[in-house]
């Protein structure tokens, strides 16, 4: 299968559900209630939209042409592990119903009410509700669509996104690194324990992480290739990230600042291209306008003093690194990223400035929690709970920027070549 074909499948898997839910929501606003018919119409429109979008994307030119014969033992092993993770994810998600308390009480409950009332604009919004009932309806609507067509395992939506993430991370890596490196770093993303466990629950963090990660990766690709299609896809994916979870917007700011710092000369072109894809944010705005004017919702503005709470900020910084350096949660991503930063700093190579985006994502995470955290009574808990989940949108980008860093790339290649030759010798002997 060609890389171009893989990219199309990946984009259908990732952008497809997002676009379909947006269309179902817009049809609902126009009076076409949520039904199998509206879902079918939305799927057809979304399929046409993704088809047109992928036709605009250029053919993928791998950094090195590698034939099928050059696969080798290591590449096959890495591929088997990635496929195993996707299969394991599919088995888990198709067997277990949604059962974590927050998913049952909010997203699944909303999905079931959407099924009952045939609308996203539930009558429950006429009274006060817990905060996550006001999140944009991507996850509940996605789950409801599965229930509508008779599939009781709504969590398969997460498996589709997980598989799409693996495919698109691999495809984008192939533009910059050889096949084995691409597979190794894709496996590193797929096997991040917290990301994998996140994909087994039906909450908003994992889908937001998928959209933010891929949106950022496509923008990095655009910075390297200057092909307009990549900026448009990036804009679309960031739009869908906003449609999933509001706090994703902070990473949109981070990536735009990063792009301008890396290539200051292209800002006009970047914004015009990015705006083509950004209408994904329109339904998000409509959703909040509906909440504001129809349901009387007003966003929670953090209460209390705006003076910096130094104890909290210090605790937040410590918490970030404690979490990042916990291998049971985020694997070996943070040490590798620090190594990549060190190499980038030493080489002073313009090509390696991309690690800056990883740092800006970490800064975005820090700024988001620094602004919101003290408004919670239990801010110590917030750092290790909300903070950990928000890190899901940061960590895959750390892997991507590490993987394409030239020194890390060279080292990985030589280590993999040595392991490969060791296997060959063992087999030969």
């Amino acid at each position, binding site marked *: 299968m060609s890389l171009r074909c893989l990219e199309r499948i990946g984009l259908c898997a990732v952008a497809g559900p997002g676009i379909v839910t947006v269309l179902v929501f817009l049809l609902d606003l126009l009076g076409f209630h949520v039904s199998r018919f509206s879902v079918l119409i939305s799927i057809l429109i979304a399929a046409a939209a993704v088809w047109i979008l992928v036709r605009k994307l250029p053919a993928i030119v791998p950094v090195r042409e590698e034939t099928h014969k050059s696969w080798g033992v290591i590449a096959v092993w890495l591929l088997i592990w990635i496929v195993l993770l996707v299969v394991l994810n599919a088995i888990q998600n198709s*067997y277990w119903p949604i*059962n974590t308390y*927050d998913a*049952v009480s909010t997203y699944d*409950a909303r999905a079931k009410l959407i099924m009952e009332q045939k609308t996203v604009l539930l009558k429950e919004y006429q009274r006060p509700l817990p905060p996550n009932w006001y999140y944009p309806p991507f996850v509940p609507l996605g789950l409801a669509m599965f229930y509508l067509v008779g599939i*009781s395992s709504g969590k398969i939506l997460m498996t589709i996104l997980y598989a799409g993430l693996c495919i698109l991370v691999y495809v984008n890596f192939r533009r910059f690194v050889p096949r084995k490196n691409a597979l190794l770093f894709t496996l590193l993303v797929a096997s991040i324990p917290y990301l994998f466990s996140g994909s087994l629950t039906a909450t908003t963090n994992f889908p937001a992480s998928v959209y933010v990660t891929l949106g950022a990766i496509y923008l990095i690709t655009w910075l390297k290739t200057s092909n307009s299609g990549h900026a448009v896809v990036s804009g679309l994916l960031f739009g869908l990230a906003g449609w999933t979870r509001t706090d994703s917007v902070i990473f949109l700011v981070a990536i735009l600042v990063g792009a301008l710092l890396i290539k200051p000369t292209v800002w006009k072109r970047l914004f015009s291209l990015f705006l083509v894809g950004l209408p994904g944010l329109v339904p998000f705005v409509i959703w909040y306008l509906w909440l504001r004017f129809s349901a009387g919702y007003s966003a929670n503005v953090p209460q209390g003093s705006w003076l910096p709470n130094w104890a909290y900020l210090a605790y937040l910084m410590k918490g970030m690194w404690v979490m990042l350096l916990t291998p049971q949660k985020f694997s070996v991503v943070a040490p590798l990223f620090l190594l990549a930063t060190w190499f980038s700093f030493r080489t002073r190579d313009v090509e390696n400035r991309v690690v800056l985006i990883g740092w800006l994502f970490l800064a975005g995470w820090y700024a988001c929690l620094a602004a919101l955290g003290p408004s919670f009574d239990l801010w110590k808990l917030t750092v290790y709970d909300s903070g950990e989940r928000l890190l899901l949108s940061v960590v895959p980008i750390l892997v991507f920027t590490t993987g394409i860093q030239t020194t890390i790339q060279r080292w990985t290649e030589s280590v993999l070549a040595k392991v490969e030759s060791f296997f060959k010798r063992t087999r030969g002997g």
Partner: protein
Amino acid sequence: MLLTPNRFSKRLRVDFVLAHPRASYEEKMIARWGDHYLFVQFINSVCSPDGMILLPSPDEYPGPCYVWLVPKFVFPQDAFGERKFVEPSDITHIGVIRGWWPQELGEAPLSVTEESATYGVYDLKNKRFLKYRMVE
């Protein structure tokens, strides 16, 4: 004591899947949450769909238990366990968990404070306590 989710380890989960490949939604939820799920089902069965049940929030609940998960399951019956989401005059039922009773309503009825009646639902309109019988 309600079965806590921690007791359902990864190993037990795999064993359950292998032993019950065709388990129903109910069976899976009971396997995952044990008495938590059954207690919630009990609440749903004794409350009317338009009823509003008040349950203790985590900080009000006196014992170290996962019982704070219970109100989360009760939705859409307007029970979040968090007082700020509930108008006191709209409350129709009280979820009694280990003898918990909201202070605003004064002394707890005798039926609630009885030693054996630790889990159940108190119907404020009919002044009746419906006791939940543990399965596990």
